[in-house]
Structure formats: C-alpha cells, structure tokens
C-alpha cells in the first residue's frame, strides 16, 4: 500500500493522538493537516460530513472517520510488507525478516477472544470511563458531581483490574496495543484536566497504582512521546475554557 496517507487533526485532541500513535507504531509515514476547529475547512467538512470532527484519515482515495475505527484500519491496512514476492520461499523469507525487525507490530491481538476484550474495554472507555460520568465529575457541582466522582472511580477500578490481572506493562502485553492507544486520555489528559478543574479522581499515592505505572510507561514510549501535546499548553487550554465546559455539562444535549 504505497498511496499517500494524510491525517486531518487538531492540536491537543486525544482522539487525534490515538491515530497518530497507531501510524507511528506501524511505521507509516503521513502528512498531518492541522485543522482550526473554530473554523472548519472544506476538506474536513467534505470528508466527514456526518460528524464534522477530527481525526479523519485520508489514504489514497479512501476516507476513514472515528478514531478507533481508524486505528483498526491502520492495523489491518498496513499489516505486512507492501508487496509480497510471488515465490513462496521468498515470501517466507520476507515474513521472517518483517517479524525479526519488528516492523508492523500488530495493534490488536491475534486471538479472537483477546480482540473482543480489547474492543470491549475501548468501548467502555469511550462510553463510560471518559464519557458523561467523567465530564460531570470534573465540571458539575453538588450531588451530581459527588455521584459522578464515585462512578468515575468505579470505572477506573475496572480498568485498574485489567492491568493488574495480567501483570502486564501495557493493556496489550509487553508492547503498546489497541487498548493502550484507546486509553491514552487517561495517560496524558486525565491529570491535566483534573488539575485545571481542581477535582481529583486519582489523588492518593495508593490509588490505582497499576494505572499510574501504565501512564508513565505509555507517555515515555519513544513512538508515543512525539505525538503527545505539550502538557503545560494543555493545562492552559483547559483552564481557559473551564467556564465553557461547566456550561456544557449543564445544557441538554444539542
């Protein structure tokens, strides 16, 4: 697959980060097109008319939207050497070297059950752990906020359990995989958002030790680091926009 790859993204977005992380881990060169989300381009609106959001992957004449769908696509479309030799023994050699050089590391596990589990927890993160309960815990008040903090901690506990169960460095095992990428928000954005809102979900040194260790491992990885937005800049951004977020959680869904 030698068609050019372009990624329409925006600075700071954990969803965009997921797709950059996947491209980097697979060793796929790409052009990053930065989008001003206050003033969306024709390119973005043309390629993502339904959601009008980033990230959007353009691969040749193909368009893929929704960060986790993109991550899976990247995992499958850039799976092996671009052209397999036709002689079977050459193919065997090609596969040996690809494996030996650790190119094209699969992001999703090979086993169907492990794949189902990775998808399940990624889904849990997007619909529960990093969704409404999390936002309410950061930006609402009173009883709602208290309940949401409780629920958010329960969600984090589920994820902590997943890490502890396998005594693994990453959700994916010894190397970063699909679920680690899906969970990136917790590795790099959670701390910043907590700090900006003055709310602690992960405060105590004793709380969620496996998640803390994992976050450290994830954010120090050489493939990941270059596509993590600067922490201080993120903090400034979240502090500056806090009133907007507080209003957002009060308003009914648009």
């Amino acid at each position, binding site marked *: 697959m030698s068609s050019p790859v372009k990624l329409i993204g925006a600075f700071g977005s954990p969803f965009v980060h997921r797709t950059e992380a996947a491209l980097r881990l697979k060793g796929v060169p790409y052009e990053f097109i930065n989008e001003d989300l206050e003033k969306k381009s024709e390119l973005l609106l043309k390629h993502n008319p339904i959601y009008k959001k980033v990230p959007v992957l353009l691969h040749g004449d*193909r368009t*893929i939207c929704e960060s986790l*769908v993109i991550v899976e*696509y990247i995992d*499958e479309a850039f799976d092996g050497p671009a052209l397999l030799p036709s002689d079977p023994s050459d193919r065997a050699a090609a596969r040996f070297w690809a494996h030996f050089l650790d190119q094209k590391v699969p992001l999703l596990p090979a086993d169907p059950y492990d794949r189902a*589990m990775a998808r399940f927890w990624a*889904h849990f993160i997007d619909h529960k752990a990093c969704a409404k309960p999390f936002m*309410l815990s950061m930006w609402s008040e009173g009883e*709602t906020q208290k309940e949401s903090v409780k629920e958010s901690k329960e969600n984090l506990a589920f994820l902590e359990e997943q890490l502890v169960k396998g005594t693994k460095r990453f959700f994916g095992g010894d190397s970063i995989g699909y679920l680690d990428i899906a969970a990136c928000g917790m590795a790099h954005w959670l701390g910043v958002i907590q700090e900006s809102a003055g709310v602690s979900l992960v405060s105590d040194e004793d709380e969620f030790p496996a998640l803390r260790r994992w976050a450290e491992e994830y954010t120090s990885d050489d493939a990941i680091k270059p596509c993590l937005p600067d922490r201080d800049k993120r903090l400034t951004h979240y502090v500056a926009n806090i009133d907007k977020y507080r209003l957002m959680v009060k308003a009914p869904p648009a």
Partner: protein
Amino acid sequence: MPSSLSQQPPHAPAPVKLITAFGSPFAHRVEVALALKGVPYELVVEDLANKSALLLQHNPVHRSVPVLLHGGRAVCESLLIVEYVDEAFHHGAAAPRILPADPYDRAAAHFWAQFIADKCLKPLWLSMWAGGDAQARFARETKESLAILDAQLEGKKTRFFGGDAIGFVDLAACTLAHWLGVLEEVAGVRLVGDGEYPALRRWAEEYTSDETVKRFLPDRDELVAFFSANKERYTSRVRASLQQQ
C-alpha cells in the same frame, strides 16, 4: 451423570451458551450471527427484573444481555459478540463472513454500526419515553439519522447494507427493521411518516423476510405486550437520567 457426557470426543469444540432475554434486539443480533456461522448453542433466558448470578458474574460492568459464554469465557456487548463469533468460528475460506474481508470495507462497516448505535438507536429510545421538549429534540435527531441511512441504502442499490447477504451493519440496524414499529405503537410516538425513508423500508422488508433472520424475530404481538408492560419503567428511567445533569 449420563455416560454420553463422559465420552466427549477430545476434539469436541467448547460448548457455546447465550444468555438472553425475551424481546431483546441485541440478543437477536447474536442469534442471527451464530446461525449464519453454523454454531450450535444453548440459550439461557434471563428475567431482567431478577438477574441471575450467572449474568452478574459474567457481565459485572454492564449487567445486561446478551452475554456469550464460550469455553468458560464471557464476551459482552452484542456487536462485539457478533464480531467475535465471526472471527472465532470462521472455518475455511468459503465460510460466510459477517464483516467483510477488506480493511476499508471493514472500517466502513464499523463506522456505520457505530453511527447506528450512537446516532439512531440511542436518540430513538429516548424519543419514545422522554416526553416534553426533550422528546422533540431526540425525535429530530433520530429522523436526521434515519435520513442519512436511507440515503446510504439508496446510493448502494443493494438488498442489504453490506451487499447481497446479511452482514454486520444489517445486524446493527435490526431494531429499525422489526422493533421500531412496535415502539412507536406502544409509546404513541410516530417517527416514520407515510412514504418516508423508502430505501430503509425496502431494506426492513428484505431483512425481516430473510430465512435465517425470521427464525429469531420475536412475535410482534408478544413484543407489543412486553414493551407495554414495561412502559412505566422505561419512562421513569429515561426521565430520571435526563434530569441528572
């Protein structure tokens, strides 16, 4: 213990159980998938008002059906189960595929299934029970999404979302084929006007007449009775969740 159990051939595949509940479109998706892949299974029917220890043990996060038990391991979330069934029971290159083989087509299938779940089914459910201004808002959102799906089908000109055979997106959309009319009737909320979404209506007809699908469609009158009996519960739950902002 019957002697047949102690004489299982060593290569016998691990048994499959499906924890289900009457009327669930989510469980329906999995049953169709298992049938398409030719996988025998045992049904365990739950009373959702009185959840079993088995269910709570195997789905502690969501406590919902369906749950697939395969060789002692549990897979939850209906579309994830469908994908698991597609992958784990794929025997031979000629076996029917629920998700397409090509990565781009797979990405498209995942995208549309997610769109249907988040932008159609979620507001659809809320529009049935929310009442007041919220009801109008969710109805509008649902209709916009139905129009998008209708346009997708119109453009494809195939019998189903994935082509000429039932696939992942059709299963994702099954609620629209068989449950939508039931919900409209029970809730007294009409989303689909006369003549609206012709391609979607045609697809619904194709879907519900399919030989495999038909076996797993709950009886319409029983569905009406079931949802009517639970109407109060849905209404109070939905309204409570919308209050909590």
